[in-house]
């Protein structure tokens, strides 16, 4: 969920400007103007310190303590070293959840990228009105708040009165009469994937489409004259130009899908049979349902570390990009 036109501008290769690589100046002494950037980022730093770093540090500290219900209420938690991490990492459950989270992320991100690429490639080939209609439809999807969307999907897949079961039975799949989707782990997982993909495609598709419109048409024409097929054009012209944009979208989707929580919690609370327990849900369960705040914090810390590991190449590239600019 992010604005359409921002991303392409953010990633489009920017011309080197005098501002970006200023001419060498003679070394100078401290000037008050040097304080400017620090003043400008001060509110961000203050907010981050209070609302992110402080809770994060607190959470990490808790993960090294024995911190359960009594400690939350009375205080006075004792440090236990790496005991909580040992307990989490030593259990089979954690690794099952990690594997499930990676599968969850991969399935969603692949589907989102694939579908949104196809939609983005389809859009410019449509007539003007059809294109507007499809884009408006996607904007509508995009504007649907998560909580409303989960409520809608629960209603669509409701066992007795849900329209999906009615449709399937009408199409001749009689086994779906009163089928309880949310009783089975795999079908619940599938519905959650459908929900997340449904909600995520508009952003990715519209962003990619906006990127596509920046590709000069001459490139396509010359490729076509050379006799390239549609797939070859995509591989040798479209994709290389849009590669940074794909990188950005995939990274953002990985982040969003990996830490997706509200949809899962609202629909299945991680069940049935833990089939939809991903890492954020797992951490929440341990902390909030079982009151093992210490283990929950350990899982949270590990979650962040895993996410950073998954995205390390992305982070590196971003930073390198910054390095070239600065």
């Amino acid at each position, binding site marked *: 969920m*992010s*604005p359409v*036109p*921002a*991303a392409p*501008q*953010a*990633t*489009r290769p*920017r011309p080197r*400007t005098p501002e970006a690589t200023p001419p060498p100046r003679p070394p100078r002494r401290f000037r008050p103007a*040097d304080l*400017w*950037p*620090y003043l400008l*980022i001060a509110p*961000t730093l203050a*907010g*981050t310190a*209070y*609302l992110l770093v402080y809770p*994060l540090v607190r*959470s990490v500290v*808790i993960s090294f303590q024995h911190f359960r219900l009594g400690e939350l209420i009375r205080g006075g938690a004792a440090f236990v070293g790496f005991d909580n991490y040992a307990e989490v990492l030593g259990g089979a459950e954690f690794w099952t959840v990690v594997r499930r989270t990676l599968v969850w992320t991969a399935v969603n991100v692949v589907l989102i990228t694939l579908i949104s690429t196809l*939609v983005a490639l389809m*859009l*410019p*080939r*449509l007539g*003007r009105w059809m*294109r507007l*209609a*499809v884009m408006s439809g996607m904007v*509508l*999807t995009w*504007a*649907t*708040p998560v909580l*409303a969307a989960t409520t*809608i999907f629960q*209603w669509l897949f409701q066992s007795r*009165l849900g*329209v999906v079961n*009615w449709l399937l039975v009408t199409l001749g799949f009689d086994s779906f009469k009163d089928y309880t989707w949310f009783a089975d782990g795999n079908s619940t997982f599938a519905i959650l994937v459908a929900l997340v993909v449904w909600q995520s495609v508009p952003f990715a598709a519209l962003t990619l489409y906006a990127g596509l*419109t*920046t590709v000069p*048409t001459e490139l396509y024409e010359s490729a076509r004259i050379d006799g390239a097929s549609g797939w070859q054009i995509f591989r040798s012209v479209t994709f290389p130009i849009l590669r940074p944009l794909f990188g950005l979208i995939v990274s953002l989707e990985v982040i969003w899908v990996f830490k997706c*929580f509200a949809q899962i919690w609202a629909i299945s609370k991680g069940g049935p049979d833990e089939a939809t327990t991903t890492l954020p849900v797992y*951490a*929440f369960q341990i*902390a909030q349902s079982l009151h093992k705040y210490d283990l*929950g*914090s350990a899982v949270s810390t590990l979650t*962040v570390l895993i996410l*950073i590991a998954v995205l390390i190449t992305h*982070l590196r590239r*971003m*930073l390198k990009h910054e*390095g070239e600019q*600065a």
Partner: protein
Amino acid sequence: MRPRRVLLNLAALGVLAVSVFPVYWMVLTAFKPTTDILSETPTFWPAHPTLEHFTTAVGTPGFWTFWGNSLSITVGAVLLALVVALLAAFAVARMRWRGRRAFILMVFIAQMAPWEALLVSMYIVARDTGMLDKLSMLTLIYFMTTLPFTIVTLRGFIAAIPPELEEAAQMDGCSRTAAFRRVVLPLLAPGLMSTSLFGFITAWNEFAFANALIIKNQADRTLPVWLSSFSNVFGTDWGATMAAATLFMLPVLAIFLVLQRRVTSGLIAGAVKG
């Protein structure tokens, strides 16, 4: 060439149907009388539209209070994030200073923060700083959850505006801030709008913190918390639940309609041309 056209348009219709149907179904259910909702064969058109479900939803105690709470903290968080992010984005996009890369790294990592996992420690932080049971704490948290993304996006927008424009203005005798205001800010308008859209949706939606940090002051509950308790109480009443979801979606849709047109107008213009 012909069959390809047909195929393409069929695919487009498919995408359109999948995008629109769930939302259409929600609105439709909200307007259907209960007997139609409970019928074994669904109807796909409101034959007998009724407002009874909306009356039920709006009639629940405190609805307007929760509505107001959600609106005020959402707008507060979005404005705060815009102002703070604009300052930081400008510093990152246009100035060179020691620690700039570290700052950017911090913003990227902040974007990955698994917020729900910080619920307990956020509770403790709020309690220890006397911010429990306060709407202002929710405003601050929503501000923080949208801030990193807003900085990254606005920075992209600022960087895309050629600095020469500003320099030209400065040569015409404007101060740096005046140049920013007269030249950069108008060009930034679409960026500001689209990031506020993102912030608005995120804050409007948030449930976990609103549920955990508002404890005793029940009049300070927000719309998502109301929606979730609504579906507990009216779980069987799909009409009322869908009406509630529709009412919940309405402001987001309104903001989208107001802002999105201006945001995408350039996009669509480009699309028509290309």
